């Protein structure tokens, strides 16, 4: 399904996308539609693997190291330099475990759920401009596309929760849906305030709009990143995003001490890996989204070729923030979570939207 993303026809005219570039370089262009498809597939393969590799580093290694730093410990040290080979060891360990499927599991749904969770997050990366020319597709509805595919994950979660035939999974699945519904709206509405600024849903346009100079202090140009233009929207988006991807303090769908592991309680072996991958991919997708629409995408000092580096630094910055919050912030209760979503964030995000619209309207 990774390859299918690239078939989206809507593209901006001025940006050179990765599939086209690969087509040029390898001469696949000459083979018509089949060649384009192959080039697109190769491009998607590269981006998909980049993201999966990041998840691989994040899950078994980086998360352990970061948590250890917060808790005065050392964490993995034995395999490879700084314990990096634990990634390989963990992969082998997880994949070679026995897969245990509950007796009453609702079979196709139970098997599909991990795939839906993992792939929905992967889809979102298709429209993210990562700099250094790594950009798979640039449809005019880019932002809406990301929100839409990320939302598919909720279906996966509720499928997992329901199909596991476990009460804890059920509670977790229900919590996940309640939470996603409550926080999707503030997330999208806050995202809309950025669209009002940029005047487009297209990712490349949004990134370009942030390249302008906001203010120049002592010869240093501060770019018009929307996090600086509208910090209020940035914070709102950040909070809603943490809830959307189920990170502390909003990790109620998993809530290890309350409902064991929520929707993933009954998953083992490969399925567990898929769900876990999906979770990390969602964190990174959230980070990518924040980087793109609030932090200038791949923008940063130095030549434009460094774009991907800056972009990854921004994503990992958001990941680090999730781990930081995890170390210091208690989980809110499910009723408090819903209350914050509907009574707090929703109202604030609409206020932000209206305010932005008024300000932009006045300036224009």
């Amino acid at each position, binding site marked *: 399904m990774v390859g299918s993303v690239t078939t989206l026809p809507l593209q901006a005219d001025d940006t050179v996308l990765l599939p086209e570039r690969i087509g040029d370089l390898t001469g696949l262009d000459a083979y018509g539609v089949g060649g384009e498809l192959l080039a697109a597939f190769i491009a998607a393969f590269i981006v998909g693997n980049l993201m999966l590799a990041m998840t691989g580093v994040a899950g078994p290694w980086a998360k352990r190291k970061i948590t250890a730093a*917060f*808790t*005065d*410990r050392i964490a993995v040290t034995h395999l490879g330099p700084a314990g990096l080979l634990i990634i390989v060891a963990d992969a082998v360990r997880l994949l070679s475990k026995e897969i245990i499927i509950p007796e009453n599991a609702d079979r196709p749904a139970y098997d599909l759920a991990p795939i839906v969770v993992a792939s929905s997050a992967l889809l979102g990366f298709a429209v993210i401009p990562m700099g250094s020319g790594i950009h798979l597709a640039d449809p005019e509805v880019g932002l809406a596309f990301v929100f839409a595919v990320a939302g598919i994950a909720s279906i996966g979660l509720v499928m997992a929760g329901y199909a596991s035939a476990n009460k804890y999974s059920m509670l977790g699945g229900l919590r996940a849906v309640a939470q996603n519904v409550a926080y999707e709206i503030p997330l999208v509405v806050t995202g809309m305030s950025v669209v009002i600024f940029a005047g487009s849903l297209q990712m490349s346009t949004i990134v370009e709009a942030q390249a302008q100079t906001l203010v120049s202090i002592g010869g240093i140009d501060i770019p018009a990143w929307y996090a600086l233009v509208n910090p209020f929207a940035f914070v709102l988006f950040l909070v809603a995003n943490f809830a959307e991807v189920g990170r502390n303090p909003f990790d109620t769908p998993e809530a290890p001490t309350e409902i064991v592991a929520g929707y993933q309680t009954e998953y083992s072996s490969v399925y567990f890996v898929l769900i876990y991958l999906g979770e990390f991919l969602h964190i990174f997708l959230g980070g990518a989204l924040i980087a793109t629409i609030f932090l200038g995408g791949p923008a940063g000092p130095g030549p434009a070729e460094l774009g991907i580096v800056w972009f990854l630094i921004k994503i990992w910055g958001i990941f680090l923030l999730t781990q*930081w*919050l995890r170390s*210091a*912030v208690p989980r809110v209760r499910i009723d408090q979570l819903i209350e914050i979503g509907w009574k707090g964030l929703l109202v604030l995000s609409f206020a932000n939207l209206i305010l932005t619209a008024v300000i932009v309207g006045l300036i224009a």
Partner: protein
Amino acid sequence: MIGLLKSMATTMKHALDGSTFTVEYPETAPDVSPRFRGVHKFSQERCIWCRQCENVCPNDTIQIVTDDKRQGEQYNLHIGQCIYCRLCEEVCPVDAILLTQNFEFTADTKHDFVYNKEQLKAVPWYKDIDPLESREPDRGAWIGEGEGDVDYQ
């Protein structure tokens, strides 16, 4: 909100100061106190087969077999069942049974933890600590004073 930020600042401080509290076992042998009670060491040369340790043991971990002349034949101790209370060492009038600082022992089945007198004798000292020195075994309360029967045989 301020409290929240204070919490986050506290954990960040810990993350940045880089200090760790972990002992990298088994690369680094952890320090144990001189009084620490680990696996037993038995000395047949010293033992007078008075059976006081067998009597005082709260959960029948020590088994002594003697012949009809009360000469010792077997001294078995189930180190997996032992609760490491040190009463046997405390009661022994001749320091024949000691608890070393050695806490590292493994076996495939629990039956392998039944040590006979040869195995007990072979238990190594931990970091060459002689527990007798550090524990200043004052057995005044056991031997010198006290009323009631003192029966070594």
